[in-house]
């Protein structure tokens, strides 16, 4: 199988804190690999190494076979969609301008940018006629995150990174967006690396789950394997499933 992203003995330390230690795994074309872990387990740190927002202090991360440090960071980032919990839409741009950002930066003709923006907004359930001219502050949290997803898909990047994208949403909106994520995945078959601390979300969305614990990979398994896993950290996460059903 072809690996789109490859972590090779990656370490990251800042001062005397070791955030990642000897992390190795491959992300294969078309799969959604979920990095699951507690706060501070290093999952976001690992994610940010893929689009070179951070650089490893040891080992290397390969994207399409080339170390991130050898990529032109601008080229690398424009090939990778990025969705974060706080969305980070530009408050002074309209929704259409936010979604069309990367295509515009890539020099697409304005008509093509507009067409692409309309298509994407429709795909994430925000009809263009109604939303294109609005500003982010006029949208709800869930709508904003839909725009965030549309923006990440805009230039049709082969790889997508998600950093707890649905973490700040209410449970109902969260489930809606998770379902939409699955629908979009069926449609586009993108490769995705997805960070979450929610085991339920990991089991629902992941083709494989990488469990991070104290900066190390505790387990790398399919959802089915994960349910039967025996490591203490995996058990701890699986125990959350039982607690929640009582609610």
């Amino acid at each position, binding site marked *: 199988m072809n690996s789109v992203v490859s972590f090779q003995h990656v370490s990251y330390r800042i001062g005397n804190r070791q955030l990642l230690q000897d992390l190795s795994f491959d992300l294969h074309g078309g799969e959604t690999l979920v990095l699951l872990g507690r706060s501070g387990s290093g999952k976001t740190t690992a994610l940010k190494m893929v689009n070179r927002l951070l650089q490893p202090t040891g080992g290397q991360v390969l994207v399409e076979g080339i170390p991130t440090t050898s990529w032109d960071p601008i080229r690398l*980032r424009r090939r990778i969609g990025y969705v974060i919990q706080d969305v*980070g839409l*530009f408050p002074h741009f309209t929704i259409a301008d936010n979604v069309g950002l990367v295509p515009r*930066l890539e020099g697409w003709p304005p008509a093509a940018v507009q067409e692409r923006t309309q298509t994407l907004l429709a795909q994430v359930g925000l009809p263009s006629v109604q939303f294109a001219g609005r500003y982010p502050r006029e949208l709800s949290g869930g709508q904003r995150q839909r725009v965030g997803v549309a923006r990440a898909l805009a230039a049709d990047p082969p790889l997508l990174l998600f950093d707890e994208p649905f973490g700040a949403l209410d449970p109902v909106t969260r489930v809606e967006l998770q379902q939409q994520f699955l629908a979009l995945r069926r449609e586009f078959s993108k490769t995705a690396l997805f960070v979450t601390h929610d085991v339920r979300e990991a089991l629902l969305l992941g083709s494989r789950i990488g469990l991070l614990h104290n900066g190390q990979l505790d387990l790398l398994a399919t959802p089915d394997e994960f349910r039967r896993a025996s490591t203490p950290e995996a058990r701890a996460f699986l125990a959350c499933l039982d607690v929640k059903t009582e609610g």
Partner: protein
Amino acid sequence: MDGLASEVLDLTLEHLWLVLISMMVACVVGITGGILLTRRPPWRRWVLGLANIMQTVPSLALFGFLIPVPFIGGIGKHTAILALVLYALLPILRNTLAGILGVDRAVRESAVAMGMTERQLLLEVELPLASRTILAGVRVATVTTIGTATIAAAIGGGGLGVFIFRGLASVDTTLILAGAIPAAVIALLADGGLGWIERKFSAV
């Protein structure tokens, strides 16, 4: 009285000229400097410290100190402009820095992650979002400069201060007011006008 009226007009124009030139220089230096400081954290303490010290020097003394300085000092307008620029610098510098550093972390991170170059990040994201704060600094600096510029007359810089110093010397309240009132009116108008522009920007 006709003579006084036309002199008021002349000196008011001269005063405006002093303020305009000083503010243009201060804006260019202050905004550029503020942007550079966002990229060079270690410099911040030193530059802001120096600019702070400049502000604490009494204005009359600063004008005086500049007279004996070779090349840049001496008697006349350019020395006055230099002193006014030094005064106006701090609020512009500080607000530019604060405005850019105040841009939401998630917005900046997205901009970088979308593959914006340094230049695009600055021109399309940081400066537009910081513009209100920067303008507030320019407004404070402008109003202060209009007042401080009256002291320029003490070193031969001209402007409305000419009336004030002449009035002080001859204990003539009318003359003092002939300088003070136009200066106050200009300051109020500038404050109102720049405040209006600031609010226009806040609509974004």
